[in-house]
């Protein structure tokens, strides 16, 4: 059921979030929060996810008020996973970015049954494009833009490769756009559902984009890898989609994995099989998001 139904079912209204469970791809999160202002934001940004009242959860998240003894006038929030608090408390008015980073942390530190890539992952015509990149390379912006032009979002952050069959598991989360890319994206997709802007986070100003409804509803639909494209945004540079050798792609991709070094031979085989099945490119682009989308669409349209 959608969030509003689940919240009413358990609470007859939703002044706070009390143990509701939501699913994103293969993971179930149970969320409890005593932040009354947070409920409306969750209702809006997580409206399309599958919520339930009593379901098994992989991660039990508490996002609760915290009073700092030195600065009691500055409201803070603490993020708990079970009884552990992996982060320092943070300002109460940045609860959504911290929830999102916390969910990333949960998956990145626990989901070692996948080969996890730091990558945007999108699918069209049952063929998947993987966009591995360092922070600041424009990965999230490019991923978000392609999802507004007919691609299905699997993730803007986690490429979850199943070692047993090489398929990619969707994990369609809110997409955090940052700094200049926020205005660029608003121009690109004026009707997209976006959350508040959070200035002065550790990554600058962050604003979350709600994924397309179709991507969320298809979060159990695995996808076949087809292309690996390493994007790099550099202001003013001419757009260039350039094929690269598979050995180079293997080395680069291993550097973009969260857990390649941890999972041993399973990781090597999964990564090598991924390289076997994909065409590999680097992609430089310098600013025109619409042109970048057209260029990457040529892959799916078999024009390259």
């Amino acid at each position, binding site marked *: 059921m959608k969030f509003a139904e689940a919240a009413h079912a358990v609470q007859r209204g939703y002044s706070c979030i009390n143990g509701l469970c939501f699913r994103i791809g293969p993971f179930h999160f149970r969320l409890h929060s005593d932040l009354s202002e947070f409920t409306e934001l969750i209702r809006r940004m997580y409206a399309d996810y599958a919520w339930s009242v009593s379901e098994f959860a992989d991660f039990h998240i508490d996002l609760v008020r915290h009073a700092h003894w030195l600065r009691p006038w500055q409201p803070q929030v603490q993020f708990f996973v079970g009884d552990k608090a992996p982060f320092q408390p943070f300002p109460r008015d940045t609860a959504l970015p911290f929830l999102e980073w916390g969910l990333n942390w949960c998956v990145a530190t626990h989901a070692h049954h996948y080969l996890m890539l730091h990558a945007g992952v999108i699918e069209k015509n049952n063929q998947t494009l993987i966009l591995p990149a360092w922070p600041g390379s424009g990965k999230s912006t490019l991923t978000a833009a392609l999802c507004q032009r007919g691609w299905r979002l699997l993730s803007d952050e986690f490429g979850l490769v199943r070692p047993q069959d090489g398929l990619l598991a969707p994990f369609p989360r809110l997409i955090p756009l940052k700094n200049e890319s926020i205005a660029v994206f608003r121009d690109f997709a004026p009707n997209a559902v976006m959350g508040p802007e959070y200035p002065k986070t550790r990554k600058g100003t962050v604003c979350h984009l709600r994924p397309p409804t179709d991507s969320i509803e298809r979060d159990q639909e695995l996808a076949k890898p087809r292309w690996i494209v390493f994007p790099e945004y550099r202001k003013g540079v001419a757009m260039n989609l350039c094929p690269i*050798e*598979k*050995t180079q792609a*293997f*080395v680069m991709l*291993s550097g973009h994995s969260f857990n390649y*070094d941890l999972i*041993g*031979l399973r990781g*090597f*085989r999964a990564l*090598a099989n991924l*390289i076997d099945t994909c065409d590999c490119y680097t992609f430089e682009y310098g600013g025109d998001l619409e042109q970048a989308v057209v260029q990457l669409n040529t892959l799916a349209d078999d024009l390259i």
Partner: protein
Amino acid sequence: MRWRIHNGRQHYWRHWDVEKFVLFNAHSAQTHQLTPFAVDILSLLKDQSLDFAELSERLISIYGDLEFDAEVTDYLHQTLSLLDDLGLIEPESR
């Protein structure tokens, strides 16, 4: 000094491009990119230990016109040292 593959070590290979090999060392969980020359050395040491002279002879038979001058000899020493450092081969006496 005789060289051999590290006892009981399992290696897994992938080869996509000319002149480039990727090797996964299951013992160290390290991945290495190797030249064909290094791969040939590992192949020669796979079934038996060899000293420097024997290894040189076998490589000459593989490469045909390879002349073992000072430069090639030095390169072979360097490659053996590198493979030793990576934990892929070891002196038999160790």
